[in-house]
């Protein structure tokens, strides 16, 4: 049967030819109270920790992380672009002068306009159960709806959580993603600031999604937010992570971390809408653990940034746990998108599914690096990986490096990969039906992404569609 609601989404998006221009760059410096920069040293870390009034254990963890950062070598497989990050001379901590508030009208209009332009207050009002919005290194806005509070759901900035819920933070913080994992995980551990802490109590189902929104407005900045989400037994939550940055004159660096803990019978959906400007080098360290009968779903639209390295991973550690990862990346001129998921099957009858879709044009590079591991004892497990590449011209590149480590004979592990080249005849066919060349191209690209886009709430899918069209417009006309 025909589902009309579904079509109206397509029509609106495909036909709205006018696309707002990118946000103009303004200086946010006047809203910065404190920028700590002077080389990455022990005293810098101590100062950040002091500003945050952190407990002793947190400072010790930071200093340990700094030590590790200095010891661990830079991974050898990283693309050249990563060298653009000047780790010795970065704004490691940029504290906004705006007091954290739960009222948008408290936020100066010069800053608020960014959030308005991106529709954040609007989607909060219509849609979200809670929102934490971060500017530079600290959250400036935090509000959770009453119904969530009534159910004893905790959603707050990491700073507040460290003060108010130290025991639970201490128990989970960097547990599944140890700071020793790699050099940038260590750097994150040393400089971590901001991010969201969420705890969903046993049996509580949070129907409205909650969002953490992260904005970088300063060039040469490092943003190191940490999001920690614990879904207790039988609970349900959908967390949306939004990322944006206007154009900056030199590269900023994002090195965030996300840790998800899905307890028995719980469900976590974690959606990322990443639209950094082309000046951002994006590392995101994402890992989940999934206990018995739980489900972890990663959905990621990684459309922005110059270089992006994101590998949402799940450790399926309880029997019958399942996880999916759906990632769409887009790489155009001078951009490199490195993604891929790791699914570690560590318990019997666990299931995973990975769908990776990448779009390349104007010399963009997309890389998939994935791992499916089925441990001894994880019998009757199933994993399926699908990697699709859409090449819009002859200059873009797509590389796929799937990796399987299977130690149970009855594991069912499958991988499929397709490369699709957009061709002249497809464009001509759609154009002969009255759509312009750029509309036809958008239609082909959005169609390719559809399987993942439909996982996103409407507002977010619409935003990403717009971004896609803006990017595609750069291709110009072939004719």
């Amino acid at each position, binding site marked *: 049967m*025909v589902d009309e609601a579904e079509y109206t989404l397509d029509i609106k998006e495909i036909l709205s030819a006018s696309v707002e221009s990118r946000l103009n760059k303004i200086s946010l410096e006047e809203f910065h109270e404190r920028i700590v920069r002077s080389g990455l040293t022990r005293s810098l870390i101590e100062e950040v920790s002091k500003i945050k009034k952190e407990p002793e254990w947190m400072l010790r963890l930071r200093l340990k992380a700094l030590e590790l950062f200095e010891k661990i070598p830079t991974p050898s497989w990283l693309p050249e672009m990563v060298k653009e990050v000047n780790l010795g001379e970065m704004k490691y901590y940029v504290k906004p002068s705006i007091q954290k508030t739960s009222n948008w009208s408290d936020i100066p209009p010069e800053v608020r306009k960014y959030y308005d332009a991106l529709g954040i207050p609007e989607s909060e009002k219509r849609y979200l159960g809670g929102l934490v919005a971060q500017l530079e290194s600290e959250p400036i806005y935090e509000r959770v709806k009453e119904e969530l509070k009534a159910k004893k759901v905790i959603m707050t900035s990491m700073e507040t959580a460290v003060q108010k819920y130290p025991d639970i933070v201490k128990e989970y913080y960097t547990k599944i993603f140890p700071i020793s994992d790699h050099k940038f995980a260590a750097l994150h551990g040393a400089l971590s600031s901001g991010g969201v802490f969420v705890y969903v109590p046993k049996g509580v189902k949070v129907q409205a999604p909650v969002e953490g929104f992260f904005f970088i407005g300063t060039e040469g900045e490092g943003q190191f937010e940490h999001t920690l989400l614990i879904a207790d037994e039988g609970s349900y939550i959908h967390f949306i992570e939004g990322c944006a940055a206007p154009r900056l004159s030199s590269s900023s660096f994002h090195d965030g971390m996300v840790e998800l803990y899905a307890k028995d019978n719980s469900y976590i959906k974690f959606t990322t809408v990443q639209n950094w400007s082309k000046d951002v080098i994006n590392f995101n360290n994402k890992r989940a653990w999934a206990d018995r009968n739980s489900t972890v779903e990663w959905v990621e639209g990684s459309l922005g940034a110059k270089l992006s390295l994101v590998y949402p991973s799940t450790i399926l550690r309880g029997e019958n746990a399942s996880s999916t990862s759906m990632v769409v990346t887009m790489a155009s001129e001078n951009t490199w998108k490195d993604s891929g998921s790791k699914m570690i099957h560590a318990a019997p009858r666990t299931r995973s599914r990975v769908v990776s879709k990448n779009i390349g044009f104007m010399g963009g590079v997309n890389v998939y690096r994935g791992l499916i591991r089925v441990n001894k004892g994880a019998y009757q497990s199933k994993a399926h990986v699908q990697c699709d590449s859409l090449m819009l011209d002859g200059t873009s590149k797509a590389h796929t490096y799937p990796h399987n480590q299977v130690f149970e004979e009855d594991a069912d592990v499958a991988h499929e990969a397709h490369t699709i080249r957009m061709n002249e*005849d497809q464009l*001509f066919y759609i154009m002969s*039906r009255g759509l312009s060349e750029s509309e036809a191209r958008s239609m082909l690209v959005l*169609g390719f992404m559809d399987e993942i886009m439909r996982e996103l709430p409407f507002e977010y899918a619409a935003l990403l569609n717009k971004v896609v069209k803006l990017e595609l417009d750069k291709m110009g006309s072939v004719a």
Partner: protein
Amino acid sequence: MNTLEIIDLKVSVDNKEIIKGINMKIREGEIHTVMGPNGSGKTSLSLAIMGHPKYKIVSGKIILNGEDITNLPPDEKAKKGIFLAFQNPIEISGVKFSALLVASYNRIVNPSMQPSELFRNIREVIKKIGISESMLSRGIHEGFSGGEKKRAEVMQMLLLKPKIAILDEPDSGVDVDGLRAIGDAINKLNAENRTAFLIITHYRRILEYVKSTNVHVLINGKIAASGGSELAKLIDEKGYEWIEKMYKK
């Protein structure tokens, strides 16, 4: 009165001349048929009129109602009321057939129609042409049989109600029921909308259902003979050879 004029049209593909000077005048309500042996340039003619970038118009003009549309992009031509039903419509998986129908209807016919009303129209033409509604939610032509593709093309024609419809071999690869449905669609649009047709046919089966007002025989990129429906009958009996011989003289 809608009129499509093709004036001394020359078309080349990869620098090889395929259409070598064609003249044709198609008036409102007329049904022109282009016949000809394989490789005579029939499909090239249809793609060149619609504006496929590979089919380069080297010289000559295409005039619609007095306006020169020779070098307009395909979408502009479509918006002016020209429709092409492809001989082998390409498969585009990922883009829903319904999304294309909605987008093209909004572009060509009416940008502000309510979705519910639009879907009523779509259902109506689907029923008329005899395809299943489930095809709408598939990718464009994804998994369609040869016959289904032909019907789907003609279904779009019914939906978009063009002024000039170019149908490239609507009769090859369809069963008898399909052929009748396609013939009915042509006759209906011709009668109700005064749509003019340029029907390219290889096997002439469509002429059992549709009365052609003008018949052209295309040989080696040129029109070798033009006439009424009696010309089609002659070709049916004698084939193309005699025209070729006559033409060479």
